[in-house]
């Protein structure tokens, strides 16, 4: 069984030969520490990752340099973003500062051919062997980060809901076109990044989530399914109050069952394991950064024990292998998946959590 089949089976909640794994992002520092000079693609092969992730922000969005010294760019939506010393762009000034700005707004063109260059390279090298997973940033996230800014967006959800919906609809149109193009080039799966929650709980109430978040997520899910592909929704944070709503949109998987927010893989498996695939759960916060390889092995085994029964588990970090992750910890995670993730899991564990078995205590 190859990586593509493994991930496909896991997302369909069928048992593969082994619990699959992949990472959407492995920082260069970590890659270099494990094998100096290795390319990103070669690194995923070296780790025998079952999927190759292509974050849209890094591969398919246009940025124009505004000020080199300050690392200031204008993103393709018109927002000013600053690239920090270690991570991606941080919004500094949103694209839309008044309703008039939006009336005059011209959307970027999803059909520009260069956007799909990285995807084409991945397709050429990996198609049919490893899952090709395209990032498609959540509508809520794009509107919040690039169009309105977080504080304004949240206030407009109460004060000017129509504007939020109009912008969301336009961004949705773009994203559906982008997804269609990705499918034509050869994408297998989609990964909808963009958080709905913080460590303390959802950013917006379940009622507002139903009004402002889920309709757009659902539209993407339906479009992806109509085109025969599958989709993973990512959101950090304490997601339980919104979990039913997200599952009800029809997503095939949810990442990362955030351990830093106290979300438990066993609870997710017992309650939702019969409906969706669960991904992630290896804490890239304190555990992968400051923990020992032994602690990582233990956590990885627990993740497999709790989430692996019957398929429906992709074991990976809870966000990314960022620059602070100890290389030996990442390796310990991958080795443990390869060793203890082979089916039947009963060979390794005697108290597996049963998907859909009910309330977790």
């Amino acid at each position, binding site marked *: 069984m190859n990586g593509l089949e493994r991930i496909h089976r896991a997302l369909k909640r069928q048992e593969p030969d082994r619990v699959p794994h992949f990472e959407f992002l492995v920082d260069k520092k970590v890659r270099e520490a494990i094998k100096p000079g290795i390319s990103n693609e070669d690194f995923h092969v070296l780790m025998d990752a079952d999927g190759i992730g292509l974050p849209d922000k890094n591969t398919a969005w246009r940025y124009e340099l505004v000020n080199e010294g300050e690392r200031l760019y204008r993103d393709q939506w018109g927002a000013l973003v600053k690239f*920090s010393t*270690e*991570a991606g762009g*941080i919004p500094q000034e949103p694209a839309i500062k008044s309703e008039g700005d939006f009336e005059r707004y011209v959307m970027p063109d999803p059909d520009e051919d260069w956007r799909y260059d990285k995807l084409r390279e991945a397709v050429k090298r990996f198609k049919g062997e490893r899952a090709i997973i395209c990032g498609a940033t959540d509508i809520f996230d794009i509107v919040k980060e690039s169009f309105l800014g*977080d504080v304004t967006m949240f206030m407009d959800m109460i*004060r000017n809901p129509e504007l939020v919906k109009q912008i969301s609809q336009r961004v949705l149109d773009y994203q559906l076109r982008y997804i269609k193009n990705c499918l034509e080039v050869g994408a297998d799966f989609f990964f909808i990044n963009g958080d709905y929650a913080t460590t*303390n709980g959802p950013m*917006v*109430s379940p009622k507002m989530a139903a009004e402002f978040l889920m309709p757009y997520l659902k539209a993407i899910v339906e479009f992806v399914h109509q085109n025969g592909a599958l989709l993973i929704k990512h959101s950090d944070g304490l997601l339980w109050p919104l979990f039913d709503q997200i599952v009800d949109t029809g997503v095939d998987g949810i990442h990362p069952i955030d351990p830093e927010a106290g979300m438990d893989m066993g609870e997710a498996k017992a309650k939702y394991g019969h409906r969706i695939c669960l991904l992630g759960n290896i804490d890239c916060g304190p555990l992968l950064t400051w923990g020992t390889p032994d602690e990582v092995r233990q956590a990885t085994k627990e993740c497999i024990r709790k989430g692996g029964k019957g398929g429906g588990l992709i074991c990976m970090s809870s966000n990314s292998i960022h620059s*602070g992750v100890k290389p030996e910890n990442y390796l310990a995670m991958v080795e443990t998946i390869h060793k203890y993730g082979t089916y039947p899991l009963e060979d390794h564990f005697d108290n597996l959590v049963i998907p859909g078995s009910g309330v977790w205590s």
Partner: protein
Amino acid sequence: MFDLEKLKDSLISGDIEQTEALTEAALEAGVAAKEILDKGLIPGLDEVGRRFQEGEYFFPELLVSGEAMKKALARLKPALTKAGGATMGKYAIGTVRGDIHDIGKNIVIMMLEGNGWEVTDLGIDVPTETFLKAVREGDYHILGMSALLTTTIPHLAETIEALKAEGLRDKIKVMVGGVSVTPAYAEQIGADAYGKDAVDAVIEAKRLIGKS
């Protein structure tokens, strides 16, 4: 007799225009600015904070009430300045070097301002030297630093150490926050307080200057 309960309710419901209008009306009716604050606005904002921390309110509700408070405070400011007590104090805030999101920081700023703090936003990706300069040259009561990534957490400790080395540590109270920061870590690196969320940050800031 002016009904300050109505003002309180208006703030809790996040009605910015009404909160502003009622604050103005209270002033016109001869209610002392401090009384408007202490019996109307502050109890209102405390209730908003409680609802946020108990999961009844979320960012949108918290922020519109914060904005309503800010607008009301602007109306009260001339009278409060006369009475001597326009602000809680001065607060400098920044996300430490190399860090990523600043969603938390924006919301903390909004809530601090809503609670009468004069806030200077030092921005994101702030190098230690910028924090030192702000403390050295400014007259801030509190320095707030956040770190959301485990990679940047060590910079919180570095900045506190640098403040000590420069003889500036006693000049200012230091608060830290952010996803991967824990109360234990805050204590370990010698911060004066830890804020779990935007509401907690406001409570802790008040406590630090002895106004809670």
